[in-house]
C-alpha cells in the first residue's frame, strides 16, 4: 500500500505544482517552493533528456526541487500553451526547441515568440544527412548524383512537413536535387526506417542517432552548416558541394512566460549558467554533439523570432 500512497502523493504534488497560488511571492525570495519544468515532448526524446538533465543540475543552485512533467502534443505547442497561460511568476519553466518554433511558421498552435522570454539557448546542433552503411550511396556526391538523375527516387526520413527538415529538402530540390520527404512522427520509426532499408537516407542531428553511428549502421554524408563539424571532420558541408544551406540548426532552450520579472529571469539565467558550466552538463552535451556557448538575453530572443521568420519565408517560396 505504501506504493499507492507514494504515487498519489506524487500526483498530488504535480497537481499542486501547476495550480496558481493566490498572491505572488516576492521576487527577492524566489524560489521558495518547487519550480515545475515542463518538457514539451514525451519521455525519451532529445528535449526530454535535456529538460531532465537541466532540472537535476538547476536544483542544486536554486535550492528547491524541480519536478519535470512531460506535456507533449502538437509539436510541443501543448506544453508551451500551458507555460504561457500559467502565472508568469517563474514557478513554471519549460523547454522551447527549434522544431516547435518552425511549427509556428507553418501555422500550428497559437503561440508566438513574444509570448515567451528565452532564458538561455543551451544546446544546438547542425543536422546531417545519414545513409545506411548497407545502402548503395555512401557519399553525398553519389546520393545527389543519383537524385539528380532520378528525381524523387531517393527517399529521406524526416520529422515532418513544415519543419527545418522539410525546408532543407525544399532548398535541395530548388538546386535540382529532388528527394522525397517521408515524415515519421515517432523517432523510433524514423531511425528504424533507413537501417531497415525502407528509406534511402535520414535527416537528423548526430546526437539523436549517436548509437547507430557508433554501431556502424548509419554514416553521415553531408552537414548543413557553414563549417565542418569538429566531431566529423571528414564529412563535407553542403556549401562545399555547391549548395549553401545553413542557419537551420536544431537548438533547444529554457524559457518562461513573457512578463516574468527581470529579477526572476536573472536568477534563472544564473542557475542555467551554473548548470551548463558543470562537468555533468559538459559530458552530457559532448555525448549528444550539442555543446555550445549558451546564448542569453536579447540574442536568445532574436534567435527564436528570426528562426520563425526564416522558416516562414522558406515555406512561402
Amino acid at each position, binding site marked *: 500500500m505504501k506504493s*499507492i500512497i507514494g504515487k498519489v502523493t506524487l500526483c498530488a504534488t504535480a497537481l499542486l505544482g501547476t495550480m496558481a497560488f493566490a498572491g505572488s511571492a516576492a521576487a527577492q525570495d524566489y524560489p521558495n517552493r518547487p519550480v515545475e519544468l515542463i518538457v514539451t515532448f514525451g519521455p*525519451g526524446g532529445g528535449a*526530454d533528456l535535456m529538460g531532465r538533465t537541466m532540472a537535476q543540475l538547476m536544483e542544486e543552485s536554486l535550492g528547491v526541487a524541480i519536478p519535470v512533467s*512531460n506535456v507533449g502534443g*502538437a509539436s510541443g*505547442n501543448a506544453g508551451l500553451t500551458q507555460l504561457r497561460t500559467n502565472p508568469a511568476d517563474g514557478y513554471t519553466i519549460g523547454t522551447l526547441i527549434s522544431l516547435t518554433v518552425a511549427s509556428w511558421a507553418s501555422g500550428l498552435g497559437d503561440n508566438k515568440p513574444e509570448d515567451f522570454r528565452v532564458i538561455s539557448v543551451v544546446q544546438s546542433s547542425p543536422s546531417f544527412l545519414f545513409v545506411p552503411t548497407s545502402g548503395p550511396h555512401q557519399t553525398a556526391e553519389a546520393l545527389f548524383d543519383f537524385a539528380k538523375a532520378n528525381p524523387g527516387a531517393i527517399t529521406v526520413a524526416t520529422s515532418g512537413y513544415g519543419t527545418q527538415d522539410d525546408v532543407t529538402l525544399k532548398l535541395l530540390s530548388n538546386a535540382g536535387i529532388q528527394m522525397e520527404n517521408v515524415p515519421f*512522427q515517432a523517432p*523510433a520509426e524514423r*531511425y528504424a526506417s533507413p537501417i531497415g532499408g525502407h528509406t534511402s537516407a535520414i535527416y537528423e542531428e548526430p546526437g539523436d542517432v549517436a548509437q547507430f553511428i557508433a554501431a556502424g549502421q548509419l554514416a553521415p554524408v553531408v552537414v548543413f552548416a557553414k563549417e565542418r563539424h569538429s566531431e566529423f571532420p571528414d564529412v563535407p558541408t553542403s556549401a562545399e558541394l555547391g549548395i549553401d544551406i545553413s542557419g537551420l540548426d536544431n537548438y533547444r532552450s529554457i524559457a518562461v512566460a513573457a512578463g516574468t520579472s527581470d529579477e526572476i529571469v536573472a536568477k534563472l539565467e544564473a542557475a542555467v549558467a551554473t548548470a551548463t558550466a558543470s562537468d555533468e552538463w559538459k559530458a552530457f552535451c559532448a555525448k549528444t554533439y550539442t555543446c555550445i556557448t549558451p546564448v542569453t538575453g536579447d540574442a536568445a530572443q532574436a534567435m527564436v523570432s528570426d528562426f520563425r521568420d526564416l522558416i516562414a519565408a522558406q515555406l512561402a517560396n
Partner: protein
Amino acid sequence: MSALELLGGGFLAAFELWAFLTIVTGLLIGVVAGALPGISFVNAMAMALPFTYVMEPTQSMLFLGGIYVGGVFGGSISAILINVPGTPASLPATWDGYPMTKRGEAKRALTIAVTASATGGLVSALMLAFLSAPFASFALKFSQPEFFAATVLGLVSVIAIAKDQPVITMVSLLLGIVVGTVGVDPLYGQARFSFGIPEMESGIRFVVVMIGLFAIGEVVDLLATNRDLRPKKADGKAVGARLKDILYVKGAILRGTGIGCMIGLIPGAGATPGAVIAYGIEKQVSKRGDKFGTGIEEGLAAPEAAKNATTGAAMVPLLTLGIPGSAATAIMLAAMMLQGVNPGPLLFIMDPSMVYTIFAAMIIANVLMIGAGIGVAQMFSTLMRTPPAILAAFIIVLSVIGAYGVRNNIFDVYVCLAFGVLGWGMKRVGFPSAPLVLGVILGPLAERYFLTSLANSRQDWTVFFTRPISATILCLALVFILWSLAPGLKTLFLRRRS
C-alpha cells in the same frame, strides 16, 4: 561466452539481495498500479522514472522491467472483478473474465488469467534471452505498410467482439476512429475538429477516453443500479482453478502467446493490439467461439497470454536496435539514456552482463508474477466487500488523477468526465463501447502508417499488396472478415437459392 553462460551470470546477478528486492518492488508497484482503474502501468513507469536517477543502470532496468511485467497483468484484476480495465490491454479481459465473476467464478477467472499471463510472459522472456539477434533483424523487415496491415488486422478483429449486432459494432468503431482524428493530423500539421480550442489541437488521448467510458461510466452505472459487488459465496470453487482447468485452455494460451510474441516485436504495436487480435483469432479457432462474451475460459486465456507475451518481445527491438516499440519501452529507453547507457547492437558487446541480467530479471519477474498477481487479487477481492459508494468515490478520484497524469493537462480531465457520461448512456441503451475505444486507439495509428507508406512510395497505394509481409497480413484480415461473416452469408446465399 555462450548465451547460456551469460544468462547464468545474469541469474546470479539478479538473485543478489538488492537486485531481487528491486524486481519484487517493481512487480508489486506494477500489479497494484495496473489494477487501479485510471492508473496504467505506463503512468506508473513515468512516475517511477525520477526514482531511477539514484540507481545503477542495471538496477533501474530491473525496477522498470518489474513494473512493466506486473502492470501489464495487473490491469486484468480490475477488469475481471469489476468490469473496469485497469489498462487498455486488459479490455478483452472484461469480455469473458467479468461474466465469469458474475457467475461467481472470480477466483477461477483470476487463476486462469494469471497463469496465462505468466506463461505468455515467460515464453516471451525466454525468446528475448535466446532469440534476440535473429528476431531483431526480423523486426527491421517491418516498415510502414506492414504496420498498417497489422493495424487493419486489429481493427478487423473488432468484428469478433460483435456478438449478434455487427452493424452497431461497426458504428461504434467508426465513431471511435472519428474521435481519433481530432487534433493536428500526423503528417501535414492540419488541425481537425479542434474548434479553435488550443487543447483540442493535441488530440484526444485513448487512455482518457478509456478511463472515461469504462471507469467513470461503470461507476456511475454502479451507483445508479445500486449493484452489489460482494463476491458470491458458496459456489464450491473457492480454491480457484484446478490443474485440469488450465490444461483445458492450454491451446488458447499457446496461440495467444505466439500472437503476442509476434505483435510485440513490431515497433509501434504493443499489448493492446496483441490482446485484441488474439481474442479475435481465438474466437474463430475455438469450438465455443459463438459463445464468446458469456464467460468462456479460452476467451479469457488467449488475450491474457498475448498481452504479457508482448512484454519480452517489445524489449527485443529496444535492447538490440535501440528502438522502443511502445510507450513503456520508450520510458525504459529514457531511463537508460539518462544513465548514459545507449541501447543498441553495441550494448551486447560493451556490457553483455547488463543485458543478460535484464533477461534473467524478465524471466524471474514473470515467475514471481503468479504469486504477486494472486496476492494483489486477494487484496482487491477484499476491496469488493467495501460498500459500492466508497469504492466509487475512490475510483473517480483515481480516474481523475489518471486522466490528468496522461500529459499533466486539466483539459483531459474534462474530456474524461464527458466520456464518462457518454459511457454510462451507452451502457444504458446497450450500445457497445469497447469498439469505440479500439477505434480511438487504432484509428490514428492506421492513418499515420497509411500516409507515411504512401509518402514513401510516391503515393502508390499498391504498395500494401506488393510487399509480401503486408500482403500476407491483409489477406489474413480478409479471411478473418469472411470467416466471421460466413454464417450470415450462408443464410443469405441459401435464401437466394430457395
